[in-house]
């Protein structure tokens, strides 16, 4: 098992390198010249020599490959570089990453508990009331786009009822930290959760139904064990494997892809940072945020492998 984990971990290093190469050279290929953001056009045309000196001192005239390794070396030393407005990317991320993790974490846990729970109950009580209602809601939840859910929620809860703030993560001068966080998180978390619950519910229901039709469930019943044991011990564990894969692969989408939700709620997370950077052509920030999202993807896929190995002995032995 330890060997398995180590092997999977080591395999992540070349993958990250490849991703960093794609990100770096890909963005260089867009032909954005950072000088344009530092110096105004009038100054630029008047002081061509000085600008050239600046270019030289910043290393922008070096071959791309040299620039790449310098960037990579800096990254490895924890130096993420600067945004075009001069702020340190590392310090921006230090504030915004936790916000995104909060958002992603809560919606992940909530949707896992609700989605898998309802899915499993729907499978056990197939064609029951919960199953019917759940199926209709699942279609709705998947069909309505997230930004619309967000806007509707803002309409109802912020504008009409005034229960929750419509934007930001902290209110200035809030005394009760916990309450403040809860109020700001409630609507975006709900928005993210609704979409995910729909997906997970359908998926958990279908895999559980498959498992409940398999022969070993009959074997389990033939032992005379109570039904809850048949469902939880023999059914649930086998059904959870594919569901967990889906769940884990939602994490990178949540971290990088809550872009829409973060924009709708003006929530200052990584998604917002990235969208703003893309709009502003701030490729330093785009590179780092892209890398972070790619790294979470890799970490999640690593965790999927490990979880699979823990849950299914057939994977473990194929080391």
């Amino acid at each position, binding site marked *: 098992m330890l060997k398995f984990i180590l092997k999977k971990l080591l395999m992540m290093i070349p993958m990250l390198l490849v991703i960093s190469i794609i990100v770096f050279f890909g963005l260089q290929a867009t032909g954005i010249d950072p000088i344009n953001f530092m110096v105004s056009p009038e100054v630029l045309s008047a002081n061509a020599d000085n600008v050239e000196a600046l270019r030289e001192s910043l290393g922008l005239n070096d071959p791309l490959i040299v620039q790449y390794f310098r960037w990579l070396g800096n990254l490895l030393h924890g130096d993420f570089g600067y945004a075009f407005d001069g702020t340190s990317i590392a310090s921006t991320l230090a504030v915004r990453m936790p916000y995104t993790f909060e958002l992603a974490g809560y919606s992940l846990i909530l949707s896992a508990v609700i989605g898998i729970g309802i899915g499993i109950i729907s499978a056990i009580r197939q064609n029951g009331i919960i199953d019917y209602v759940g199926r209709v809601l699942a279609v709705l939840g998947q069909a309505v786009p997230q930004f619309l859910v967000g806007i509707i929620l803002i309409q109802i809860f912020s504008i009409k009822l005034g229960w929750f703030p419509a934007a930001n993560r902290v209110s200035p001068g809030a005394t009760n930290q916990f309450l403040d966080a809860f109020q700001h998180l409630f609507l975006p978390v709900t928005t993210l959760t609704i979409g995910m619950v729909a997906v997970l519910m359908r998926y958990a229901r279908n895999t559980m139904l498959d498992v409940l039709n398999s022969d070993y469930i009959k074997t389990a019943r*033939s032992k*005379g064990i109570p039904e809850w044991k048949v469902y939880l011990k023999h059914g649930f564990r*086998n059904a959870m494997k594919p569901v967990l894969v889906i769940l884990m692969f939602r994490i990178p989408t949540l971290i990088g892809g809550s872009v829409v939700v973060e924009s709708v709620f003006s929530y200052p997370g990584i998604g917002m940072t990235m969208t703003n950077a893309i709009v502003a052509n701030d490729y330093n920030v785009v590179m780092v945020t892209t890398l972070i999202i790619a790294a979470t993807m890799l970490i999640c896929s690593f965790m999927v492998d490990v979880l699979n190995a823990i849950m299914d002995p057939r994977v473990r032995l194929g080391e």
Partner: protein
Amino acid sequence: MDTKEIILDVKNLNTTFVSDRKEVRIVKNVSFQVKRGTALAVVGESGCGKSVTMNSIMRFLGKNAKIEADSIQYNALRDGKVTEYHLEQIKNPNGPEMRALRGPDMSMVFQDPMSSLNPVYKVGDQVAEGLIQHTGMKKKEAREKVLEMFRKLGIPDPEERIDCYPHQFSGGMKQRVVIAIAMICNPELIICDEPTTALDVTIQAQIMELLKDLQVKEGKSIVLITHNMGLVAEMADEVCVMYMGRVVEFGSLEDVFDRTSHPYTKALLRSVPVLGLADGQKLETIPGSTPNPANLKPGCEFADRCPECTAACREKDIPTFEISPGHRVRCLKYKNFPEVE
């Protein structure tokens, strides 16, 4: 016959499936008895309702199955005292009454060992589960019992194999594990649903020998569902021949094999392949195919394929006649014999 002698007495079992809001009768008025300490073989071609009959008794069918019977009586013999269970009166198929019987009283060996074991648990734990459930034994104690059972069933290296997962076992060994699961609580009645169909021939013989041994040495009662006539001849004391959800002939092995009476049984026995078939000699088959159970014509279900069919066969339901004590045939050829229910 008294309840000491008969372990399972089924009278007029009917199983109906609801599909597309239409009711399809799969098992019709099936009656049979299993004598204590003997083996009953249930034979018939695919789809004749053998498995459904047994699954109806064990109550393993889904919610779309409706089970009705005059009586499904299971007689447990404990310390010389007989306890009667009326399974047809038990409402919840997975409720406590049914569960209490599954394992310590009646158990089942399934057809396909490849899929009958849960892939994510160790085989030893899967065998021990039933034992722990019914006896409240500690894990360690149960492990000893499982080891003992593995040794009895001829699983080599039991100390090591007990901690293996199903995918590390061959088909024959997996079936031994399935048998161990069925046997671990020492049940009186073991229903084997085509236990060797998924295995290759050499392993088949081993598994059947194992089952026969259990029946003879430990006095177990076995119901063997099969379509392998060779196995029937070797294993069975009594034979129940089914066709299209009905018992067409029931009797002792000698009755059915030597004094074969129903045209279907005769045809079935003729179509058993034998080694050394002469060149150019074709294996006999039963002409035609089984009718669709959803739209049956009145009269005998076998009429269309029967060489001895008469006009009367197609008129109404055929009663069962007892042509000698314990030998019952559902065919109008024997209408001079006394009718039984």
